């Protein structure tokens, strides 16, 4: 049905595009890939970083950070709400806290890579009121160049997540918790 427009547009582009110019090779810009730099960057964008004494300290750390009786979704802690990729919206909506695994972090900007495989449901990282991501501190790279180099592909859906949801749309005043998670904590182990 849209074939004519497709052909028309491609022909117009072919007629208009200039002689080919080269595609540059992007150098491997590296830098410091330290926990300190990652922490400073994430703290600077309103995220929180907590260093765990080890994987075994995870449950205690989460209940200390979120002492109230939260409706919890998680693949790595005993959950109070079971979530899968087809969980209906009315079960997702009341979730207070999600504790998920992150794949790797980026020191220059405090970002973590959250692939679909770790999300339980595509909407969980944004529908939950609070988000905790658990990251192996050996998996921190320096810049976005190394970050993308880590990814053979981006899967069906994947997010570079940097801090809690925020906005400054009212007079440029920073407000945390626009539509997604109101807080983001990265637990390093």
């Amino acid at each position: 049905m849209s074939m004519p427009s497709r052909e028309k547009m491609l022909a117009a582009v072919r007629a208009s595009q200039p002689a080919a110019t080269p595609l540059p090779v992007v150098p491997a810009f590296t830098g410091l890939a330290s926990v300190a730099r990652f922490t400073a960057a994430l703290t600077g964008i309103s995220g929180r970083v907590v260093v765990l004494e080890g994987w075994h300290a995870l449950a205690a750390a989460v209940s200390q950070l979120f002492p109230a009786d939260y409706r919890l979704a998680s693949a790595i802690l005993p959950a109070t709400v079971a979530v899968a990729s087809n969980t209906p919206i009315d079960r997702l909506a009341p979730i207070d806290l999600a504790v998920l695994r992150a794949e790797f972090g980026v020191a220059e900007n405090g970002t973590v890579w959250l692939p679909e495989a770790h999300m339980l449901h595509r909407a969980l990282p944004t529908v939950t009121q609070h988000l905790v991501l658990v990251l192996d501190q050996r998996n921190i790279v320096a810049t976005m160049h190394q970050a993308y180099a880590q990814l053979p592909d981006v899967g069906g859906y994947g997010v570079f997540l940097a801090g809690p949801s925020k906005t400054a749309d009212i007079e440029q005043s920073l407000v945390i918790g626009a539509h997604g998670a109101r807080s983001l904590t990265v637990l390093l182990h």
Partner: protein
Amino acid sequence: MSQAPNHADRSERFLLDEERTTWHDETLWFIRQKRDRAVYATPEFQELRELASQIKDHTLSRLAEYLEQFEARALANGVHVHWAADAEEHNRIVLDIVRQARATRVVKSKSMLTEECHLNPHLLAHGVEVIDSDLGERIIQLRDEAPSHVVLPAIHLKKEDVGETFWQHLGTEKGLTDPQQLTEAARQHLRAKFLAAEVAISGVNFAVAETGSVVVCTNEGNADLAIGLARVHIACMGMEKLVPRLSDLAVFTRLLTRSATGQPITTYTSHFTRPLPGRELHVVIVDNGRSQQLGRPDFRASLKCIRCGACMNTCPVYRRSGGHSYDFTIPGPIGAILSPNIDMRKHASLPFASTLCGSCTDVCPVKIDIHTQLYKWRQVLGAAGEIPASKKWSMKLLSRVLARPGLFAAGGSFARFGLRFVPHALSHAPGYNPWAIARELPAPPQQSFRAWYAQQRPNQA
């Protein structure tokens, strides 16, 4: 005035509120300064700009091939790909998808393209509720206004305005002006919309040819929340949004928000590649004048734009005239070089809304020669007879004088003599010399440069 208002007329309206103009000017300059701090903290920033510029140049030079590659990969990923030659076709395609999904409730995240195509009125006219979910966009949607900036759509408003709007439409307390409380009210209001929406529409920041992915960048998480919940996702993209390789995103994500707001990266940089089973992902690729602009050698570089807004934040004219004074979807310096391609007559005053200071070109992360293009559009408009009348005659006179050295010398001595005696009321007479509205003339020198130069000569011998 019988003529349609031009940029200067619309700016005058903005300038009526002096306090607000000053706030607008200073706030945007503050954002420019945040941009500078983020840029200086990134040692390879200038190299990244050069790389981004070359990647975009290359992509535009082989755009047809990359569009085909993107389409093939996306189709293989189970994505529906649609082609829209113009705004009307884009709107028709989107409405068809919504109807096929038997949906009446749509949430939309930020997309300048759907603004450009006027998608909202089209959907509303056909019985589809469409809610803008970005906070700034929602505010202006409730007020029935257009965005005034590509990144900060409600930057022309004060918190008192937002409080008034939310009191009227969301039932918040009258006189509420606290941004935290206003945002919370919007969060509650929009949550209900997210949970109920059947279709999510988004823009596209980047589309990756080698993987067939579309990438959406937001701070609020509104795109991810809506898309994660709705059964159908429609991503609307201008055909120039492509990059060849996944790894190219490293260059662009490092540049985009540092240039826009001084942030190191957006909160959510989301890659959509394959829909889940039982769900749909549609990508609508839109031309709407882009292939024509690609065919203009002097102006094709404007298609490299990644919509960071840095040229607006830095522009001395934009900061003091406001986004609405441009009366075009994309305001500011970049809007002034994109708009004449769409309608030369209607937007003829925009390339003149510039001091040609070049600040826009200096900050542009993809190195578009914006101020050179502004200058070139002036030549094109001049040749097409689209220059404003007062400029046309003074320019003609000036070019005659400059072409005749004797006349120039005589005119100079007349001015040096005459200006001393011309009453202020005459040189600044209202309606006669718009240049003089906010400016004073310098005191005329006693002697011309020619006379001074002639005097120096004997001493040198």
